C-alpha cells in the first residue's frame, strides 16, 4: 500500500470525521441510555428522539468564550484538550475495520495504539497542573496513579494475545481468529490459545479499558462529588468540548481494541453475512456495555481502584501470561 499525500489527507479526514461523529452521538446515546435506565425519556425536544441535541450542544460550546484562569500555565492549558483528542484520532489510522477498510496497516499496530493511548493520560496531567486549581491538581495526581496502575495489566493481557498470535499486526491477529467463532481469543480450549483463562483475560482487558478511558466506576479523575469536575474544572467552551469528545473517542478506540484482540474483529460467526458490519456490531455492543456499566455502578474509592489493579488484576494477568506461554510451548 503506497502512501501518497492524497491518501494521507483522505485517511486523516475520515478518521477525524469518524471520531467526531462517534463522540457527538455517543454523548446522545449515553444520555438516552442513562435516561432509560433511570426511567426518564432523556433529551427528546430537539429533533426526533432528541437527535439534534449533539450538533446544537456543539454550536453552543463553540459560541462560548474560552477563559484562561489567571496564573494558569497558558501553553499547557491550551495544549491539554488537544492532547486529549489527538491520540484517539491517530489510533483510528491503524485500526482495521475489515480486510479492506483500514487507513494504513502497519505491522506493529498494537504498539502504535498503546504508544498513543499512553500519551492520553498526559492531557489529564497537563490540564490538572496548568489550571492552577486545587481540585484539578488532585485530579491530575489521581490520573497518574490510575494510569500507572491500569496500564500494566492491560499491557500484560495484550502481550498474552500477541504471544498467541505471534504478531503485533492487527490484521494478522484478526485473520488468525477468523477461522470459526471458536477461534476467537475470548473462547478457551478450542481456540488458538488452549488457555482456559482467556475469558478472564478478556474481562481484565475490558476492566482496564474502562479504567484507562476514565469511565465510571473508575472516573476518579472527574469525581464530580469530590473534585467539582476534576481536571476540566477550569475549562469552558470548546476546551471542555474537546475533553468530552476525547473521552468518547477513547471509548471507541478501547472498544475497537477489545473487538480486535478478543472478539475476532470483523470475522463473522458461522459465515453469516461477512462484512464490516460485524465489526461495527461488536463495537457498538461493547460501547453499549460501557454505558450500561456507567449507569449501574457507583464510583469506587481511590483505594478500591488501586487495590483492584495491584492485588487482583496484575497477579491474575501475570498468571494468565505464564499459563499461555506454557501452553504455547506444549502444543
Amino acid at each position, binding site marked *: 500500500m503506497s502512501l501518497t499525500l492524497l491518501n494521507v489527507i483522505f485517511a486523516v479526514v475520515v478518521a477525524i470525521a469518524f471520531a467526531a461523529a462517534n463522540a457527538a452521538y455517543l454523548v446522545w446515546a449515553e444520555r438516552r*441510555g442513562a435516561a*432509560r*435506565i433511570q*426511567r*426518564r425519556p432523556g433529551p427528546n425536544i430537539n429533533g426526533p428522539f432528541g437527535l439534534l441535541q449533539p450538533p446544537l450542544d456543539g454550536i453552543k460550546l463553540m459560541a462560548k468564550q474560552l477563559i484562561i484562569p489567571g496564573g494558569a500555565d497558558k501553553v499547557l492549558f491550551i495544549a491539554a484538550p488537544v492532547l486529549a483528542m489527538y491520540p484517539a484520532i491517530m489510533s483510528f489510522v491503524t485500526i482495521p475495520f475489515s480486510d479492506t477498510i483500514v487507513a494504513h496497516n502497519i505491522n506493529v499496530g498494537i504498539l502504535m495504539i498503546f504508544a498513543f493511548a499512553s500519551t492520553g493520560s498526559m492531557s489529564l496531567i497537563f490540564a490538572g497542573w496548568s489550571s492552577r486549581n486545587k481540585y484539578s491538581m488532585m485530579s491530575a495526581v489521581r490520573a497518574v496513579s490510575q494510569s500507572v496502575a491500569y496500564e500494566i495489566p492491560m499491557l500484560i493481557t495484550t502481550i498474552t494475545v500477541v504471544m498467541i498470535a505471534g504478531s503485533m499486526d492487527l490484521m494478522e491477529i484478526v485473520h488468525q481468529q477468523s477461522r470459526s467463532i471458536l477461534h476467537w481469543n475470548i473462547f478457551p480450549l478450542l481456540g488458538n490459545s488452549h488457555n482456559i483463562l482467556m475469558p478472564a483475560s478478556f474481562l481484565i482487558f475490558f476492566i482496564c479499558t474502562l479504567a484507562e478511558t476514565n469511565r465510571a466506576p473508575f472516573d476518579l479523575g472527574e469525581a464530580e462529588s469530590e473534585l467539582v469536575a476534576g481536571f476540566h474544572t477550569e475549562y469552558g467552551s470548546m476546551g471542555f468540548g474537546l475533553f468530552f469528545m476525547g473521552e468518547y473517542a477513547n471509548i471507541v478506540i478501547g472498544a475497537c481494541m477489545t473487538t480486535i484482540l478478543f472478539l475476532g474483529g470483523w470475522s463473522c460467526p458461522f459465515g453469516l453475512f461477512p462484512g464490516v458490519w460485524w465489526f461495527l456490531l461488536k463495537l457498538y455492543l461493547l460501547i453499549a456495555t460501557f454505558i*450500561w456499566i456507567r*449507569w449501574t455502578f457507583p464510583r469506587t474509592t481511590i483505594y478500591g481502584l488501586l487495590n483492584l489493579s495491584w492485588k*487482583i488484576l496484575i497477579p491474575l494477568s501475570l498468571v494468565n501470561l505464564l499459563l499461555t506461554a506454557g501452553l504455547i510451548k506444549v502444543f
Partner: protein
Amino acid sequence: MVTYFKDIYSGLVSLFIGMEVTFKEFFKPTVTVQYPYETLTMTERYRGHVELIENDEGKPNCIVCGLCQRACPSACITLAGVKPEGEKKKVLTKYILDFTRCSLCGSCVESCNFNALEFSKEYNLASTRREDFIFDLLQRLEDRNK
C-alpha cells in the same frame, strides 16, 4: 488464599447482579411526566386558592353573609354585596382574595354554610408582580363561564 478467590468470585457475581437490575429497568416504561407538555390531574383533596361555587344559572351561591371574611385569620378576603329592589337575598358584587397573605388554612371554606366556596385545583401560579396574586374571584367566575 481461598478467601482471596472467594472475594473475587462473589464480587464479580454481585457486579453481574447489579447489571441485571439496570438491564431490566432499561426496558420498563418511563415514569416521568413531561410537565409543560403533559400534566397530571390534581388529587381530590388538593388545596389551591379558594374559588366561588356557582349555581345552575351561573351566578355565585354566595349570599354575602361575610362569615368567610370574619373567619380568615390573615384578612385576605374582602367582599361586598347589594340587595336589589324586590329581592330576598343579597347579590355579591365584589370578592377579592389577597393570595399573597393566604396560608390556605381553609377556615373560609369551613365557615361557609351556603356551599359557596371551594378549593380550586390551580397550581400553575407564578408571577413577577405582587398584584397578580390579588384575585378577583367574581371576575374569575365570569371568565370561567365564558
